[in-house]
């Protein structure tokens, strides 16, 4: 185990020296996402014959893959199917498309407010994530590193705040937003999202800050650095992966929000993508499945792109938050 780890750590360095920065970076991207994990096979796995492996491993995996991915296949397929084929199952096999079209997507982009919704979602999620990250970094540093009296209790309270679901809060929160004059405004969401992002990010970052050696801080403190300087110049650069995980997670969490956006926003041009897709594109009894699936697809893409770049951080964030 230790042997394979050390080999693994050397690889990117070697490449960085010989092939320059870009190659090193590319190889790390490769390793990060799609490379084989360095784990060794479990116990006696090498004794298992090939046919047996197909039946006990690849077949079940295939079934999982089909079930888990079929809805996305169906979503994409519907989004690019010409109207004539969409409901005509007799003449065309529904599982394939003949002569795909972009008309649903162009309709969505240019004949609906989709781009406005996308802009709103982007704006709200980025601002809320940025605010939450700054606030959480400070809180997590305070709880984990300054360690005042009662910091453990504050840490646990923050954890408790994370498990309060929006379903309990949205009704009184609607009233709060009316009183603040933010009802039916994008700012209502910018203000609300940090309530679930901050507890999450703080909890996640506490785990990352814990791993930074105290000695670094001691030296800086004795050299007369303030806590603020230490946080900015020493802790933050070392907590990079933690920040990325927290940021990605916060972004996807806020992009995923439905209840608050549905409750607080009623004007069509201020809606976020999930809410607008469900409330504005669904009209009457005849559903426009083409544009609807195009919207579902386009609304998922920002999150999926974001996610695919940082899969490992995402998984680390998810499991980190669960484990911590």
């Amino acid at each position, binding site marked *: 185990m230790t042997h394979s780890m050390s080999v693994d750590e050397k690889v990117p360095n070697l490449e960085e020296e010989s092939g320059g920065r870009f190659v090193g970076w590319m190889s790390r991207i490769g390793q990060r996402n*799609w*490379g*084989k*994990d360095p784990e060794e096979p479990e116990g006696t*796995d*090498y004794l298992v014959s090939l046919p047996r492996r197909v039946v006990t491993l690849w077949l079940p995996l295939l079934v999982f*893959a089909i079930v*888990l991915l079929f*809805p*996305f296949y*169906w979503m994409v397929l519907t989004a690019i199917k010409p109207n004539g084929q969409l*409901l005509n199952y007799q003449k065309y096999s*529904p599982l394939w498309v003949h002569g795909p079209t972009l008309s649903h997507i162009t309709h969505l982009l240019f004949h609906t407010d989709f781009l406005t919704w996308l802009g709103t979602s982007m704006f709200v999620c980025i601002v809320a994530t940025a605010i939450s990250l*700054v606030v959480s970094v400070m809180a997590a540093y305070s709880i984990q590193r300054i*360690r*005042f009296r*009662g910091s453990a209790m504050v*840490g*646990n309270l*923050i*954890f*408790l705040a994370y*498990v309060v679901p*929006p*379903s*309990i*809060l949205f*009704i*009184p*929160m*609607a009233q*709060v937003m009316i009183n603040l004059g933010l009802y039916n405004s994008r700012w209502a969401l910018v203000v609300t999202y940090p*309530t679930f992002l*901050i507890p999450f990010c703080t909890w996640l970052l506490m785990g990352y800050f814990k791993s930074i050696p105290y000695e670094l801080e*001691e030296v800086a*403190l*004795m050299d007369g650095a303030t806590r603020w300087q230490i946080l900015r110049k020493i802790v933050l650069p070392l907590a990079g992966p933690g920040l990325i995980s927290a940021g990605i997670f916060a972004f996807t969490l806020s992009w*995923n929000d*439905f*209840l608050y956006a549905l*409750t607080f926003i009623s004007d069509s041009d201020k809606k976020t993508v*999930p809410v607008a*897709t*469900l409330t504005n594109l669904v009209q009457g009894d005849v559903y426009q499945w083409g544009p*609807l*699936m195009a*919207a*579902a697809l386009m609304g*998922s893409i920002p*999150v*999926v792109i974001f996610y*695919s770049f940082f*899969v*490992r951080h*995402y*998984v680390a964030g*998810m499991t980190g938050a*669960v*484990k*911590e």
Partner: protein
Amino acid sequence: MAATTEEVPIGRTGGSPGPGVPWRVKLRNDSRLAAILFLLPAVLILVGLLGYPLVLGVWLSLTNETLAESGQFVGLSNFTYLVQDPVFRTAVFNTVLYTVVSIFFKYILGMALALLLNRKLRFKGLLRAVFLLPWVVPTVLSAIAWWWIFDSQFSILSWIGIHMGLIHHNINFLGSPWNARWSVIAVDIWRGTPFFAISLLAGLQTVPKSLHEAADMDGATSWQRFRHVTLPMLSGITAIVVTFSAIFTFSDFSLVYSITRGGPNNATHLLATLAYQEAIQGGNLSEGAAIAMFIVPVLFAVTLLTYFKVSRRKW
């Protein structure tokens, strides 16, 4: 736990004090101020926008407030009304059914997938990334795709079933209460299984190989190894994943709202969707708040469980 650690990391190293004040004293005073200042933004936001609404929610549930006009204290009458309301009772039943059934299957299927992904595999990273998609894609958007998959006339599932000779007529997935219940439960299992799988996989990877090897040496079958080595080692992460999932499944809103909106005939409402229908669509804030309050006891019980599980860990 942390009360005494204040001095430990700093006091250990000697050093020259600053001019005038001994640096240790200065540092500690500085630290207290810094700790408070650093925490302040988080505390203000959480108290103002999480703590206050929570209390306001309890208060609202005890009044007869509507969206249009402010109300008065009416005691527990919202609650006494609710417990006799058949729609509310159905919602409670649905919520419990939804939570219990889907967590059971999410755990079983998630464990199966985690065990598969923990084997020696090509493309393991790719598979793990792709299998997580149902969890990553915004619930509402994938739920709309499922809504289309469950279409009464053009359901692709019915079409496949008929072509394979399994059924003879289209299934009306969302048309009858029980069909609709099982359908949304199935979608929730679909969405949540990857979360269980990836979390359990992370747990599996921390099980020391030597334990399995030792069990192997002692002649344990693979079932025995799973039952007596893997499962006990995973108990911590399992407890946490299940409690998290329990909280967010019990209080779920998006999935059911997107697919059935509580229909047909209010038969698939969960507590959260019914609360939304009463409070926001119906304008009856207080009754909606009272419905949402029924989530609290479960939240409380489940959280206490995790809380003790988590706080036992040293951090």
